[in-house]
């Protein structure tokens, strides 16, 4: 706790603000192109939906060199009347500060949690700084369930293209749902609402010098809230459009970080998820509407090619821990013609559970294990694209629901193997 509050400029600012009802955090790193829009949406949302609340906006920056913090400080909504807001608006306290500690989104969030605790806020929201589709309504949807006193954690629910978020759809959502029994559709969404109490709970966890500080904060927050017995809901935010990610971003590194963080949490909360049998829906807020989504380009042939390459060269590794029938299936799938290429749900669940057990038993270097999942994930994604190329959004959601049920059905076997 004495981390940032002891910093002089922050202690002066905290002294000035003293207490607040709402804190909105925006972690950033070189987001000068988009953060102005995000700040305006936040400011408008607070003015429109929480005019009587004392609110602060905190930009926790990772050392941007493109003037991101300056944009946060300088951005103001000039004319509220053009937004049809005529009531008196309380001034918004703004702070743009660099975070300290290990470089990463988790450290940025730690600063936000520390300020939330220092200001004794009732509700917090965090939003990404590269968002292009954020609207003032997002603030209402993320904060109101918490301010009402009924919920501690609000996860986002987005409309996404059927091929977007494939790690979420094929691994993270079905796995966390089967394990912890809560149907939180976007557990690594990026935008969250949470209570001041939960912020203090997060802050008290001894993870801020670990990988959570660098990456994996999203799944850590969701899992910690669910496993900690906090009241969880989700809010429909519409489409999520953000700046394109770095095209050179390494998929295997991404899988290693996200899936690795999820597997770590499995070990930590084994005593919690062992006793959970089935999953239940969580309350969902927000008005659902259809959104025109940008088309997505997919090269399935190349994906299958990558899968085949993996089967050719990595089978010797997979055979060390995957069940024999799964390995044999993968060899057969390698020779399937393009149009008949499939990795069925049952087989995919066996693969994912096989990897969770191998990670739990530490059969090999964690990095090798998780990075060797990449060709299988690509193969599964190719199979999903082929299966759903003529499907609409609802049918695709049904397919994901089917996959989730298989994850839940096979959890018993996972438990038995986990204990042995």
């Amino acid at each position, binding site marked *: 706790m004495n981390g940032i509050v002891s910093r002089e400029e922050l202690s002066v600012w905290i002294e000035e603000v003293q207490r607040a009802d709402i804190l909105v955090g925006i972690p950033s790193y070189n987001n000068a192109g988009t953060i102005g829009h995000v700040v305006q949406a936040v400011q408008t949302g607070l003015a429109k939906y929480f005019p009587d609340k004392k609110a602060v906006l905190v930009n926790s920056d990772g050392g941007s060199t493109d003037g991101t913090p300056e944009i946060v400080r300088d951005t103001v909504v000039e004319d509220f009347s053009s937004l049809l807001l005529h009531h008196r608006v309380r001034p918004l306290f703004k702070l743009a500060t660099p975070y300290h500690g290990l470089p990463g989104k988790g450290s940025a969030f730690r600063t936000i949690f520390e300020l939330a605790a220092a200001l004794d806020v009732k509700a917090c929201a965090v939003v990404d700084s590269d968002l292009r589709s954020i609207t003032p309504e997002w603030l209402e949807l993320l904060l109101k369930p918490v301010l009402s006193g009924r919920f501690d954690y609000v996860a986002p629910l987005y409309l996404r*293209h059927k*091929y*977007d*978020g*494939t*790690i*979420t759809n094929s691994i993270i959502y079905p796995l966390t749902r089967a394990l912890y029994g809560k149907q939180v559709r976007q557990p*690594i969404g990026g935008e969250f609402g949470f209570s001041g109490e939960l912020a203090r709970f997060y802050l008290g966890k001894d993870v801020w010098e670990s990988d959570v500080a660098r990456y994996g904060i999203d799944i850590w927050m969701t899992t910690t809230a669910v496993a900690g017995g906090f009241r969880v809901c989700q809010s429909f935010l519409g489409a999520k459009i953000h700046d*394109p*990610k770095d*095209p050179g971003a*390494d*998929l*295997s590194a*991404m*899988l290693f970080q*996200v899936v690795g963080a999820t597997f770590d949490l499995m070990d930590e909360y084994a005593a919690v998820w062992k006793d959970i049998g089935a999953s239940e829906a969580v309350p969902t807020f927000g008005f659902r509407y259809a959104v025109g989504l940008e088309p*997505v*380009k*997919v*090269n399935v042939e*190349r*994906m299958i*090619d*990558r899968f085949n*390459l*993996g089967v*050719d*060269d*990595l089978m010797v*590794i997979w055979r*060390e821990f995957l069940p024999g029938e799964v390995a044999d299936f993968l060899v057969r799938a390698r020779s399937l013609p393009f149009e008949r290429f499939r990795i069925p749900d049952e087989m995919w669940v066996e693969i994912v559970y096989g990897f969770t057990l191998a990670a739990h*038993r*530490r*059969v*090999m*270097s964690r*990095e*090798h294990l998780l*990075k*060797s999942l*990449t*060709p299988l994930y690509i193969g599964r994604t190719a199979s999903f694209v082929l299966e759903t190329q003529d499907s609409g959004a609802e049918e695709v959601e049904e397919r994901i629901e089917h996959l989730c049920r298989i994850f839940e059905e096979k959890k018993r076997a996972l438990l038995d193997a986990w204990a042995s």
Partner: protein
Amino acid sequence: MEELFNRLISDPLARTAERILQFLPNLVSAVLLVLAGLAVGLLTKIVLKRIFVVIRLDGLSERVGLKALLAKGGIQEPLSLLLARITGGLVVFVFFLAALNNLEFGIIQNLIERLFIYLPSIFMALVVLVLGYLLGNFLGRAALIAAVNAGVRVSGHVGRGVKLFIYLLSVTMALELLGIGRDTVLLTYSITFAGIVLALAIAFGLGGKDAAREYLEKRLKAQERDDDFHHL
């Protein structure tokens, strides 16, 4: 005639018999030492194995990742059994050396003396070989996975190449420690780095950077067209 018989037959026989009688106790004690060594070695192995089970050494080796490291090196036995076997074997070996020394053969004693002087180098060379084997497997696997994920068509060769390179390096270093081929390490480094520099020069210098990249992509990687969906 009798004198001749004594000089040619009887005396040498008597001396031989005397030597055999002198040598016999040493031989018997050497045999006894070997037998005792086998018994003590076996006992050491059994006792150590039980101690390791009691202190849960295998659980510890699993937790610190040593079991996985050994498995990566192709060693499937539990650490407790491995250590008990090695210690038992060393006990037998020491008794065997003592037995040989007890025979009081000058050549053997000389060899044993040299062996003991040489022993630290042998031990270090063995350590280097074992570490090289484990490291070779680890880095070979890392290279293989990275190559597959990068879409390199000759990933298997890349992994095997890295593994072989580390093996060769460790063998060379072990030989260096044993005093065999003192200049080999220097030569190995020279040849390897010269090879790498030459390959880079050919790829990026003579052929031109773009041409080399195009060629390599065509040759090594799958035909790519970017996907534009988000994985997370």
